[in-house]
């Protein structure tokens, strides 16, 4: 493990006991914990600057507007967007993807078109495309995953065959929330662009964990959630290339996104306003901006090494448990490990771990079709972030040993 500062002191929630044991939080892929700086930013906003944005000329409103738009600029820098106007604030990854599926899908998809996804997509990057395909008469196809435990990642040879000129859009996850696979996103975007397909990258599991540059990736759209990267709940981002955003019709309409309204009709502002109808989550956006600062301060390349280092260590140590099935690649993986036992169900594993103060996630991880393909209904997942330590992996392994002993006798 590379050297890593102990940042636990920055996270108030970690300093508690659960069931009489110190909390070991290994569920960051579901949601990350929040550093003091982010919590303080919310408090500061509500105690000093709270006001509605955009339409106000008084001091508070100007401060709130500056802070909100400042957050947009901050986030744009964090993902290396060419222009802050390419950052649309949404509730999260799910809403961001639905926005593209609705607005872009309705305008561009027609019968005979193909939407391409992969077999490892989260329901949030899968069901919206099923719906868009159904509504438009387009066909949805999937890039297969390779290997009995999906250890081979995406089948890039199959991708070559699947990426025909009928493919109008290719939606894929940067990092799988179940397998830990890191997909070659830049390469996938490059190949998609070669056939003229628009790319949608689900960066829910990547943007807070690895350095990310949308221009280097060459994607058209990219979606993520603040709550998975130390930000507040309820805020997320749709990044879109300016040229595409400018042509994107709004999905929601209402206050703040119109230029002119009469009783017959309305005209829209340019992006980003056009795609942000109604009062936005002002405090949430500000909190997300501060989360960007926090992660940048830790050095994002170092975070990537730390998280995947812990995951590799966990993979190694877990593989010593009898009759364990480990999913995803052994090596190049992001900060999580998913596993299953043939005779002990994930729910029982999670309940027993909780007894030891360890927070794990058990279930299908919004990945039902992939589970089914792998012959599973659920797995247990341990996921790591900046505040986790190698010692917590030892605690996890001991806890699992006790659980197996109980059920196996």
């Amino acid at each position, binding site marked *: 493990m590379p050297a890593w500062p102990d940042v636990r002191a920055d996270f108030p929630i970690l300093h508690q006991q659960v069931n009489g044991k110190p909390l070991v939080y290994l569920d960051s892929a579901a949601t990350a914990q929040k550093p003091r700086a982010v919590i303080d930013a919310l408090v500061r906003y509500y105690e000093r600057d709270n006001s509605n944005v955009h339409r106000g000329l008084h001091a508070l409103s100007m401060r709130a507007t500056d802070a909100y738009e400042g957050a947009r600029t901050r986030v744009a820098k964090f993902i290396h967007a060419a222009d802050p106007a390419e950052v649309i604030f949404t509730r999260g990854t799910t809403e961001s993807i639905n926005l593209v599926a609705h607005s872009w899908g309705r305008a561009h998809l027609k019968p005979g078109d193909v939407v391409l996804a992969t077999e490892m997509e989260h329901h949030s990057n899968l069901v919206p495309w099923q719906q868009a395909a159904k509504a438009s008469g387009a066909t949805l196809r999937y890039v297969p995953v390779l290997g009995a435990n999906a250890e081979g990642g995406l089948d890039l040879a199959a991708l070559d065959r699947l990426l025909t000129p009928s493919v109008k859009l290719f939606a894929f996850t940067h990092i799988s929330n179940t397998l830990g696979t890191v997909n070659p996103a830049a390469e996938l975007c490059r190949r998609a662009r070669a056939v003229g397909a628009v790319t949608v990258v689900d960066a829910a599991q990547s943007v807070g964990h690895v350095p990310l540059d949308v221009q280097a990736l060459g994607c058209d759209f990219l979606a993520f959630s603040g709550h998975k990267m130390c930000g507040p709940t309820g805020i997320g981002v749709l990044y879109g290339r300016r040229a595409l955003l400018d042509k994107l019709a709004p999905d929601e309409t209402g206050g703040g996104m119109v230029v002119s309204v009469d009783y017959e009709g309305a005209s829209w502002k340019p992006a980003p306003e056009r795609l942000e109808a109604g009062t936005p989550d002002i405090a949430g956006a500000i909190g997300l901006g501060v989360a960007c600062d926090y992660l940048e301060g830790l050095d994002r390349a170092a975070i990537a090494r730390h998280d995947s280092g812990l995951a590799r260590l966990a993979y190694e140590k877990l593989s010593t448990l009898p009759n364990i099935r480990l999913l995803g690649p052994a090596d190049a993986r992001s900060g999580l490990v998913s596993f299953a036992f043939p005779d*002990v*169900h994930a*729910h*029982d594993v999670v309940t027993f771990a909780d007894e030891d103060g360890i927070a794990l996630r*058990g*279930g299908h991880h919004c990945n039902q079709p992939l589970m089914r393909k792998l012959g599973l*209904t*659920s797995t247990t997942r341990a996921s790591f972030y900046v505040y986790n330590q190698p010692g917590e992996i030892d605690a996890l392994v001991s806890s699992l040993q006790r659980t197996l002993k*109980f059920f196996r006798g």
Partner: protein
Amino acid sequence: MSADLTELYQQVILDHNRRPRNRGRLPTANRVAHGDNPSCGDQCDVFLQLDGDRIKDISFDGSGCAISQASASLMTTQLKGKTAAEAEALYKKFHEIVTTGKEPEEISDLAAFAGVHTFPARIKCATLGWHAALNALKGDAAPATTESHTD
């Protein structure tokens, strides 16, 4: 192991989990229903051989945690021979047990599930098989889900 956990994973439950009773497709079934626990992907099929209003034979199949498997298994042993109305009444009692922890004297093995009530997230596990069985009794083709708001 804590008292709560020991109470949850009682010997009866572990036993039914390891050696489920009446598991598999019932060849003589004339009713079947499927149950889903959407929050975890657990599934349970219940097969009934109904003779008029009475459950002549019953089996289950599916996958899930120890609690859901043991509950479905134990349920089959309790429902065999019961009428639809009796099954309904028994579920009411079972539901009371898993949500409140109260153990009515007259019910024997079902009381093993009283420990569930301190783990509210597991109530859905314990009731999955029952939901499917009641749907099968009603002849309801729609899959049962534990996400109803009466749980």
